[in-house]
């Protein structure tokens, strides 16, 4: 009886802890959701009014804020900017990181391992250390307030990161496969292109997706280089340009945050396991 009680208590504790962590993690998203669909008179009630419960819809939900977002703000322009900047950066990143990742996994010996760690460490050099010299480089190139500045700068963190990730994926593919292909008469390069790349496709996709999300995450470089509202990315436009003077359009703001976050969150969750596998495989000797 006592044992069973203790077991039950443990169970309750476990669920309680799981619930607490979940609530903490999810609360801001719930708040985005509520705010995005609440009517203004439901939203802007002084918080001190104890009878008005902010946690629920007190009035029926509305699409007013979402409509405002799509019709009267540049949200769609920002999405477009983010997509083409992110797409280009992913392309550039893969072009550089794929050969490098393969070389580090297969062709380089002892020095490759060191170099791999070295490249990964450059990923840790924070944007906040580099935005000042970059602002000068960008000025010299005449790219102030141009999205091209971001296309140039974002690969500085996506290339090291994806090189490391891809190195991990390549290592997890058995060496014998390309050795067999080379015995069959393929050169190293064609073995790589025709045999290894198709096997690595899911890893490449993972790297591309994470490069894209890294681009979406950036706030510092966008803030430093872009000043025109029409040239902003979502990460910059939403917090900076949806506030007019001192007025926050909270409904539309939260709608924008929610609509942007949901697809990222879904994609992230779909790929997280593969992502962790790649990240840790890079650290384990192949």
């Amino acid at each position, binding site marked *: 009886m006592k044992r069973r009680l203790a077991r039950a208590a443990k169970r309750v504790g476990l669920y309680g802890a799981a619930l607490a962590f979940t609530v903490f993690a999810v609360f801001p998203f719930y708040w985005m959701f509520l705010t995005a669909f609440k009517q203004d008179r439901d939203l802007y009630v002084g918080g001190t009014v104890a009878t008005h419960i902010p946690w629920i819809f007190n009035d029926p939900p509305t699409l007013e804020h979402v409509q405002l977002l799509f019709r009267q703000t540049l949200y769609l322009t920002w999405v477009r900017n983010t997509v083409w900047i992110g797409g280009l950066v992913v392309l550039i990143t893969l072009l550089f990181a794929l050969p490098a990742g393969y070389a580090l996994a297969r062709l380089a010996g002892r020095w490759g391992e060191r*170099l791999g760690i070295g490249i990964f460490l450059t990923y840790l050099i924070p944007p906040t250390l580099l935005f000042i010299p970059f602002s000068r480089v960008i000025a010299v190139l005449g790219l102030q307030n141009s999205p091209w500045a971001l296309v*140039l700068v974002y690969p500085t963190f996506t290339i090291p990161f994806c090189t490391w990730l891809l190195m991990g994926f390549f290592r997890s593919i058995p060496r014998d496969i390309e050795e067999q292909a080379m015995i069959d008469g393929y050169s190293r390069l064609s073995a790589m292109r025709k045999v290894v790349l198709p096997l690595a496709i899911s890893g490449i996709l993972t790297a591309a997706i994470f490069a894209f999300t890294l681009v979406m995450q950036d706030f510092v470089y966008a803030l430093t280089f872009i000043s025109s509202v029409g040239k902003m990315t979502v990460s910059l436009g939403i917090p900076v340009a949806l506030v007019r003077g001192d007025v926050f359009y909270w409904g539309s703001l939260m709608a924008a945050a929610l609509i942007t976050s949901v697809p*990222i969150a879904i994609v992230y969750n779909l790929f997280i396991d593969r992502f962790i596998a790649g990240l840790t495989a890079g650290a384990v000797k192949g």
Partner: protein
Amino acid sequence: MALKEAQSVVAAAPAVFRRRTLADRDDALGRLLLAPALLYVVLLVGVPFGMAVLLSLSAARSGTLTFPWVGLRNFWTIAADAQFRLALRNTTLFTVVSQVLVMVMATAAASVLEAAFFGRRGVRMLLLLPWAVPVSLAAMAWTWIFDSTFSVVNWTFRAVGLLKGWLYWFGDPTLAMIAIITVHVWRMFPFATVIVLAGMSAIPAEIREAAVVDGASFWRRLFQVHLPLLLPVVTVAVLFGVVFTSTDLSVVYLLTRGGPYNSTHVLASLAFQRGILGADLGQGAAIALFLLPVLVVVAILMLRVARRAEVGG
């Protein structure tokens, strides 16, 4: 007969005696494939990094491209600057407090996620959300949550009787710092949880079962079995956390813009304010570079941990 043999050798020749090209010399090919990525990183990380050091020794301003050399003057100026010292203190406080909280929470969350219970996959998925969402969007949600008039946190505290008055989260330096740390912990702990969880699953089950069979209590198992085995992986998580926390400006900038009265600036946000908004590139670079020694130490520690894990594995 001999002729036929010779013919078959000739026929096979293209495969066997194919000319060795560059592509077959692994070493050279390796260098060739690595070169573009390396070049990009050297040109766009290495060079700007060197520029940051040079800029910190100059009185350069944005708008002009001159480079007036002033030696260490920028460093003396900021060292005597009360606002800089406050930013340095804030950065330290912000990093240490949030990392301690993150690691405690991540270890707890990882233990929870390790246990088998109904809905575990769902919980894991939801816990990852804060890490996936772009920081600037999450920060806006938190700004609204901590709003001076409509704060749901305040309303809830009052409703359950924890609070009598009304807290102005971004109007008071201490409260603003608490808000900043809360947001940062919220954002960082999922990532740390994932790392710790990966480390936990790497601990052999026999070791844990042996500890249970030997009758070790929960706390003893935690402190004498789990945590020591987790140490390398936790170290990596902490080092990552320190780098991402001590150099972050987005949470501070978005939540408070460094206010009230410049009381919540961290080094990165102060560097932004002086270097970009204030156009004093030299001073901005000097402030940003203050983090460099910390980062170097972190990098060295990381390499050490990586090497030790290698030896151990």
